[in-house]
């Protein structure tokens, strides 16, 4: 056990799986870097250095730099997965799904069903998401609801270095296509991370705080903010449960329902655009299955329905933050209009 950054945790997970299984390969733009160039090899180790060191250890045959050709190499990764490799492909920014989504949602996601159950597609697509980087509208989105919408895909959103390592190893060993979301603002966050390989199961939520008054569900980077909000509220006498579902597909809705039944109040924090996001999905499911337990209307904390702005003044306004979460919890606490049946 040692303190490791989120970046190191992902790197270590991939490294350990590559060492364990020769069928695991890694590909992407500048994933090692320096291909065909006169300077250093492994010049970048991925756009933000997450895969640094893999190429020197495993060679160019298993760490493949690609041209800028997302349809080409994401599709090749799908085809390679279908025929016996276990590729980990890097779709740099999830915003780039627009140029290769067909290969993900019409091809990889559907092989198993369309082919009558006979296919296996052990593919991992790593991708960066999220705002806060001043990266503007085309490099900041939280597009995991779009992937969650597609049957056949699994969607993983680690909230910490510990989750990142365990969920990445699980993703690589999983036999279905997995989209692995890495928040670019989390890469330098540190945490205690075991040195040895370990897995965290998909579809099992993690309770990061336990309380009696309200339930907060949050995803990815929002879990940190939800924890902070819960701690501040706790000091003011309002105790909250915080649920990190870890994966949006499969989604551990049972744990969410159980906690909502216990507290009677629900706030969902989701960095994705507000229409048809995880917060609206969870709100719908809770309203459908635990309506009688609710003491107050469900509150969703999400950005406004706008592209992600560039100016720091606007981006900060756009993003959910601790204050917004606290005021949503206060709102559900105040809304005493309805007694639990």
């Amino acid at each position, binding site marked *: 056990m040692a303190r490791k950054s989120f970046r190191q945790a992902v790197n270590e997970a991939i490294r350990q799986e590559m060492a364990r299984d020769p069928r695991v390969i890694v590909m992407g733009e500048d994933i090692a870097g320096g291909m065909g160039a006169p300077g250093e090899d492994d010049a970048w180790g991925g756009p933000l250095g997450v895969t640094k060191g893999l190429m020197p250890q495993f060679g160019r045959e298993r760490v493949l730099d690609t041209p800028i050709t997302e349809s080409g190499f994401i*599709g*090749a990764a799908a085809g390679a997965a279908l025929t016996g490799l276990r590729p980990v492909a890097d779709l740099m920014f999830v915003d780039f799904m627009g140029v290769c989504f067909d290969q993900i949602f019409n091809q990889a996601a559907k092989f198993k069903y369309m082919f009558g159950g*006979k296919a296996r597609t052990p593919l991992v697509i790593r991708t960066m998401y999220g705002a806060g980087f001043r990266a503007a509208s085309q490099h900041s989105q939280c597009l995991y609801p779009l992937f969650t919408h597609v049957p056949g895909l*699994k969607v993983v959103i680690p909230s910490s270095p510990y989750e990142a390592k365990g969920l990445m190893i699980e993703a690589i060993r999983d036999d279905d296509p997995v989209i692995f979301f890495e928040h670019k603002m989390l890469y330098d966050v540190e945490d205690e991370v075991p040195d040895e390989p370990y897995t965290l199961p998909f579809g099992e939520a993690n309770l990061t705080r336990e309380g009696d008054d309200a339930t907060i569900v949050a995803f990815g980077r929002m879990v940190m903010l939800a924890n902070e909000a819960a701690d501040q509220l706790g000091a003011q006498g309002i105790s909250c449960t915080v649920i990190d579902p870890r994966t949006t597909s499969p989604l551990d809705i049972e744990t969410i329902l159980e906690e909502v039944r216990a507290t009677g109040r629900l706030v969902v924090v989701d960095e994705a655009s507000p229409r048809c996001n995880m917060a609206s999905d969870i709100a719908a499911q809770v309203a459908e299955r635990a309506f009688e337990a609710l003491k107050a209307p469900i509150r969703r904390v999400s950005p406004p329905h706008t592209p992600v702005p560039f100016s720091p003044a606007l981006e900060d306004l756009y993003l959910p933050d601790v204050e917004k979460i606290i005021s949503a919890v206060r709102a559900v606490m105040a809304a005493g209009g309805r007694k639990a049946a």
Partner: protein
Amino acid sequence: MQLSREELLRAYRSMCTIRQFEERVHAEFATGDIPGFVHLYAGEEASAVGVCMNLTERDSIASTHRGHGHCIAKGCDVAGMMAEIYGRKSGLCAGKGGSMHIADLDRGMLGANGIVGGGAPLACGAALTAKTLKTGAVAVAFGGDGASNQGTTAEAMNLASVWRLPVVFVLEDNGYAESTASAWSIGGDPLVRAEGFGIPGVRVDGHDFFAVHAAAGEAIARARDGGGPGFLHLKLARYFGHFEGDGMTYRAPDEVAKLRAERDCLKLFRRRVGEAQLLDDAALDAIEAEVAAEIEDATRRAKAAPMPSPADLLTDVYVSY
């Protein structure tokens, strides 16, 4: 011509099977019994068979929406295919894929594809597997003239060139994408496009089984030997509409009749082996009769086979969930 008598018989049987399969599906579709979209391959048999005769079960192909011919040429079970087209549980994909998604991974058939241009990147992936695991296998990406204008095709060709993958791209230029002529839709020359990616290409009369077989053989052997990707531009024709139900008002009135009379790949094959005294009419006629019986049996069984059960709706989405 280096094909043995056995290989010639196999080639003819395979082409005949495709032709009779498609003629039968055409007739059955007209009765209203076959659900969905069906795109028939009749007329193009020399391509699928000429190419796939050079492949083994370990090699992979990625196919198209017009995939029945590729499936049969790659060894898919005909009865399983027919049952699939009828949406039956006994179909090759348990009735969940249908005509546009027939696949048989055990035979290296990576799927017909409902997305035009969807297959070429997947073939690159199969070639990458072969290269990484050093299996000696190759992959073939079939695509139409319409698909040749998709970005995925260009991306796959560049990637194959850069990674030096054992993959061969086969452009089946049947003159049309739906109602749009390839003479209009393809800017420039596909061979020059391939050359631009550093991929050697050759243009072949796609009605001529022997020409296709030889050209494909060369490209596939080179790819297998580590010589990188290849490209074939086959000029051929489909006999039926784009899909079943297409009135083909965009074609010349006598176009198909003329093709059937003068450029039919089965007739050309028979003439060629007859003139060279390689196979006699009796042997070829016997094959046709056997194939007819096989198609009849496959159709009868497909019609009688049970539909999937309601529980099947929810299975096979994930390996585990």
